[in-house]
């Protein structure tokens, strides 16, 4: 019986641990999964320190240190199928913002400049050195399946595991967050961009219609749209949709500004410029991926430099 079980390894690289918690939070379904899956290496749950051969390998987090890189390579070697699990693994995630700051800047800030730190030491012994950049895992190893989401909703996690166990294609759509959002897109009369501090938008209508930036239309649904359905605009934590990734001249800001301009009385260029100025926010989760980083329209470093230049002037 037990040798028929599908063997699973998981590992976390540089991340917040939330994706592993999301796995545990399959709840009753985890008991169901355990009927057909044998969990081997899984640092949060088991004491298996090495990497036994496995059919499925789940990797969360992005590559930040030599240690991360090594773990990714070993997982690739030992697992037949590698799933890049969560936005960090797929796109680099929030700390992909490492792209906007050098490793030296971050270390200097944390270990020397902080008001509480009383020493003058930068960790450099027995710790794995930080890489210059934060890298999504498919720039280090081949990836078979991608499951973005920060973290992915258990609905999608279960479907992907179930399909692998049953040896079929996962039944998931490529819809954007708007597909699950209950708000209605209407033509509104907003004349300027507003934010959450100005007003509480009407929960019946799309944020865009009311002059609030929402990244739902540019974001792949791997979350069931909890934010817009609970009064808060989407900030794109599951990463961009396939159209945005594959169409060279389409980009998060062009998609959103085009749509928002149609739904309001605000000029498209004004929205686009606003989104460039706030690029650190709009591209928070997917900055580190080359799919975004190498787009002809993507100039995040320049946009951030422009803003910081203005502040310093």
């Amino acid at each position, binding site marked *: 019986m037990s040798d028929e079980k599908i063997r699973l390894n998981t590992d976390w690289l540089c991340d917040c641990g939330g994706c592993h918690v999301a796995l545990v939070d399959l709840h009753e379904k985890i*008991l169901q999964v355990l009927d057909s899956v044998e969990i081997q290496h899984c640092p*949060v749950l*088991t004491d298996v320190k090495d990497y036994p051969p496995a059919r499925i390998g789940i990797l969360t987090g992005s590559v930040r240190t030599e240690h991360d890189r090594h773990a990714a390579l070993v997982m690739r070697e030992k697992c037949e199928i590698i799933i890049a699990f969560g936005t960090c693994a797929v796109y680099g*995630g929030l700390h992909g913002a490492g792209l906007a700051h050098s490793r030296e800047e971050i270390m200097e800030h944390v270990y020397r400049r902080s008001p509480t730190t009383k020493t003058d030491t930068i960790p450099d012994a027995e710790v794995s050195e930080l890489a210059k950049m934060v890298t999504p895992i498919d720039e280090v190893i081949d990836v078979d399946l991608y499951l973005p989401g920060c973290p992915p909703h258990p609905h999608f996690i279960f479907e992907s595991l179930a399909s692998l166990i049953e040896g079929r294609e996962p039944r998931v759509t490529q819809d954007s967050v708007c597909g699950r959002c209950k708000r209605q897109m209407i033509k509104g009369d907003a004349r300027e961009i507003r934010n959450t501090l100005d007003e509480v938008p009407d929960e019946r209508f799309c944020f865009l219609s009311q002059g609030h930036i929402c990244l739902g239309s540019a974001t792949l649904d791997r979350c069931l749209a909890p934010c817009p*359905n609970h009064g808060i605009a989407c900030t794109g*934590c599951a990463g961009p949709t396939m159209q945005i990734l594959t169409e060279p001249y389409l980009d998060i800001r062009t998609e959103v500004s085009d749509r928002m301009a149609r739904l309001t009385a605000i000029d498209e260029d004004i929205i686009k410029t606003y989104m460039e100025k706030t690029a650190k926010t709009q591209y928070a989760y997917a900055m580190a991926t080359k799919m975004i980083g190498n787009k002809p329209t993507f100039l995040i470093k320049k946009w951030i430099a422009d803003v910081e230049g203005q502040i310093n002037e």
Partner: protein
Amino acid sequence: MGKILNIQPVTRIEGHARITVHLDESGNVEDARMNLMSLRGFEKFIEGRPAEEVPRIVNRICGICPWMHHLASNKAVDGCFDVTPTPTGHKLRELLQVMAHINDKILHFFFLAAPDFVLGPDSDYSVRNVIGVVKAAPELATQVVKMRQLGQMMLDRFAGKAIHPIAAVTGGFSKPMREAERVELLKDTQTLLDFSLFALDFAKNNVFSKYLDVISELGVIKTGFLGTVDRADGSFRIYDGKQRLMKADGSYVDFEGVDYLDYLGEHVESWSYGKMPYAKSWNEGFSMDLSEPKGIYRANTLARINVCDQMATPKAQEALEEFRAAFGRPAQATLLYHYARLIELIYACERTIELLNWEGITDTDVRAKVTPQAGRGVGVLEAPRGTLIHDYTTDANGCIESANLIVGTTHNIGPMNMSVKQAATALIKDGVYDQGILNKVEMAVRAYDP
């Protein structure tokens, strides 16, 4: 030549860590350390961002307790913009925080720590995990999974997202609670309270009594403690209150979170990315020497249970009295963190019920008017792993100019290193060790739930 043992990764904890044990020529412990392996640098990423966006971003510091960062950050931003949340907004935030504590404790005690106790610390590593627990005690395991699910669903239903929440906003909360939701939550919390009383009983009978010798020896060190207590009567609090910094002899000072810079400092060692906070105000510097530590205090469950004068809710108070009668105040044994965790679980359930019964909880005035401005705000609360501090300064546009964070876990980095060294020194003699012994060294870390 001596030898270095690596335990990597330290498993069934919530972060990335390694233990290195340095043995001398005769195989006895020269030194033992816990190295934290990861640094992300959120202090830097949030610079320049509009402050009101930051509470959604800093969640990603930790996916185990994102609620804590979300809420501490909101408190800090309130401070920068000089806004006081409406009473209902304030209570809704506390409610979510206390509910998140419930889930966290179930996860930690039953999913991560329990295998050591239900199956025994020396059991084979391949079964010593929650799956092993499922096999050994299926009814208990099913019950635990259900309770964790209930807790997460409660957060999910009401606040949209249990992991990486979005529901708190500057000045309060994003949406009011409906009466139907309140009634539903109340019913579910009652179930969780019953479970938490059962959990403490279960642990008293099956864990704490059985492993009393391990508890009184493993990883035991003597330190001070830091926690939060009620401003008025010194009762146990986790969302709001004053900070209490206690010395190992039980004497203490109380201070307001905003003044933390006068009391706490951070020490850096070259071999770990984790900074080590210490009690600067004791004016004795920083040392992890086992017999004469300096500046070392601990945070997290045991610390909070030690610093409070009493629990603010009845069932939790009963549990505390029994605990104090057995172990004194302050209790020092490291494995008592688990016991304290279950007392807190009871408090969290009782407090959730209190808040749900508070008359204003369904008021629609959940959010105060906010105007971005230059200012400083310090948001402090008790995360499951210790006192969490977010300290922000904003510019005239309301964007973050600088930020300093002290994350709950880090308070215990110094103490964890000491406990690891204590455990390794006591257990590894003349080069003799096995898998069970190395697991016990890990258990000294696991108690702190890093």
